[in-house]
């Protein structure tokens, strides 16, 4: 569906993108992840024919963005970071305009309109001027204009930009509902948005793709060990007559004895875990999935396991590992 070969973009002498090369299969949902200013928007705009590449070849369904931009534009729906809505038009008038300008006949627009408004859940605001809508609704109208002509490729640039948490969840659900009918490209610097919506990730840094694959694959490439977060109620504390420090050390030693464990750390002071004065958290590094072994070792040594999870922020660690920066994601 999408095929890029050595695509670059220069603004004057400053390189904003590339050279980048990748392929995206039809039906995939692919996320472009990167810090602000690494070239995500430039890349997506090139694919949407809103910007010309300085060099290289970009094909969408076999059509070149430079040689056949019209054919590409017919097949692409694009939602920029700020939805391109005319604030003086009602939602229905705006979508009619968007459909017509994308080459649909008035009859085709009229046929498609109810389905699009239903799918993006904007039926209740369809007669309101877009300038009176909340940011969440405006973003949905932006998605509606991107899908009105039933494009094969849907490009969403930061689709949850400026949305509140509820609106973000709704937007994610909407994007998931569109996966059946479109190949989707999403850019974001918000990790959960990418990891929960996409089948595959491309990580950009300084205008280049530094890694690609599923979250799982990326994690495996970068980290040989796997981390577990374990919350334990100490045996001695449960009995109420032991020395806490001794009990914590005993639990740590029990975990450390498990084959494959390469490190055990206590991230907070004993007694602070989840408000349970008898509980303590451990971070366990291992070379494979050791959940069962760690659990068994703790129980056998007289401790209760309150929770045991694989570390949830794996993707963020992948991201930090690749771009060597931190602190900008949500």
């Amino acid at each position, binding site marked *: 569906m999408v095929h890029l070969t050595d695509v670059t973009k220069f603004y004057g002498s400053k390189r904003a993108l590339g050279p980048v090369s990748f392929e995206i299969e039809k039906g995939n949902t692919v996320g472009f992840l990167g810090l602000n200013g690494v070239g995500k928007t430039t890349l997506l705009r090139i694919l949407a*024919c*809103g910007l010309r590449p300085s060099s290289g070849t970009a094909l969408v369904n076999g059509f070149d963005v430079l040689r056949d931009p*019209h054919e590409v*534009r017919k097949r692409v729906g*694009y939602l920029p970071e700020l939805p*391109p809505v005319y*604030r003086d038009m009602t939602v229905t008038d705006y979508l009619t305009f968007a459909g017509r300008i*994308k*080459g649909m006949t008035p009859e085709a627009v009229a046929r498609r309109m109810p389905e699009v408004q239903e799918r993006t859940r904007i039926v209740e605001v369809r007669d309101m001027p877009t300038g009176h809508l909340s940011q969440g609704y405006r973003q949905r109208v932006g998605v509606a204009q991107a899908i009105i002509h039933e494009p094969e490729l849907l490009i969403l640039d930061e689709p949850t930009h400026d949305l509140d948490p509820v609106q973000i969840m709704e937007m994610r659900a909407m994007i998931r509902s569109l996966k059946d009918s479109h190949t989707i490209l999403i850019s974001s610097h918000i990790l959960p948005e990418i990891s929960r919506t996409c089948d595959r990730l491309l990580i950009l840094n300084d205008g280049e793709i530094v890694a690609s694959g599923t979250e799982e694959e990326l994690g495996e490439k970068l980290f040989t060990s796997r981390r577990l977060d374990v919350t334990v109620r100490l045996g001695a504390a449960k009995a109420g007559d032991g020395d806490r420090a001794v009990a914590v050390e005993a639990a740590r030693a029990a975990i450390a004895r498990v084959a494959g464990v390469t490190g055990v750390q206590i991230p907070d002071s004993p007694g602070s875990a989840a408000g349970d004065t008898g509980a303590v958290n451990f971070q366990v590094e291992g070379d494979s999935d050791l959940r069962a072994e760690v659990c068994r070792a703790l129980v056998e040594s007289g401790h209760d396991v309150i929770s045991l999870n694989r570390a949830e922020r794996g993707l963020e660690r992948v991201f930090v590992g690749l771009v060597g920066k931190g602190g900008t994601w949500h």
Partner: protein
Amino acid sequence: MALGLGSTGIIFRREFNAYVRSPMGYIVAAVVLLIDGILFYANALGPNALGPAGSELLSGQVLEGFLYFASGMTAIAAVALSIRLVAEERQTGTLLLLDTSPVRDWEILLGKFLSALAFLSLITVATLYMPLLILVNGKIAIGHIAVGYLGLTLLGGAVLAIGMLATALTRHQLVAAAVASVITGTLFLFMPLAEIVGPPFSRFFAALTIHGRHWAGFQDGILHLRDVVYYLAMTYFFLFAATKVMEAKRWE
């Protein structure tokens, strides 16, 4: 598929409705009609009115005076109406919708240009009551009015095209207004400049001026093909330049 002239028509309708829906269109119309009215009153009925009322010469002179002032107001209105057309869309991000749709740059610009020309023509038509007052109370030829209004429309079109180039250049409407005003003002000033320099520069400036030489015939009720071609050529040139700027902006 609604490509080709269809896309231009779709953009034309959207832009024309935007003028009708926004206060900007009404403000421009109100200011033009007010100032035209005041100047007409001062020229035709005020203490500076020429000669005795009712004479054939006076009627023609009053109409010529009206057309002279109206041409200036038309040029100002054309700048005011055109500066938002691309700059505003670039600023609000809506230009991306057009840029990523199967529409060519010239179709976008032509649709916008025609909408502005249609709205400007409506404003111009609304001033018709003033020449009609002269027609009723004096002695002038309807052809003089028709030629004068054709001239206003052609002049308005040429200045709108200049405005299109200016608005395609920038995302800031004030900058677009300044650029359009400087180009239009320079082309207006070519006539007095032609009078103070010697040949061959005088001929060069006189041939290019947007007002004096090419406007005079319309003001006098005389239709020269040369003047019509000049205004159409100016319009084409600046619209073509605006299209090239739009295309070049895609590389930025």
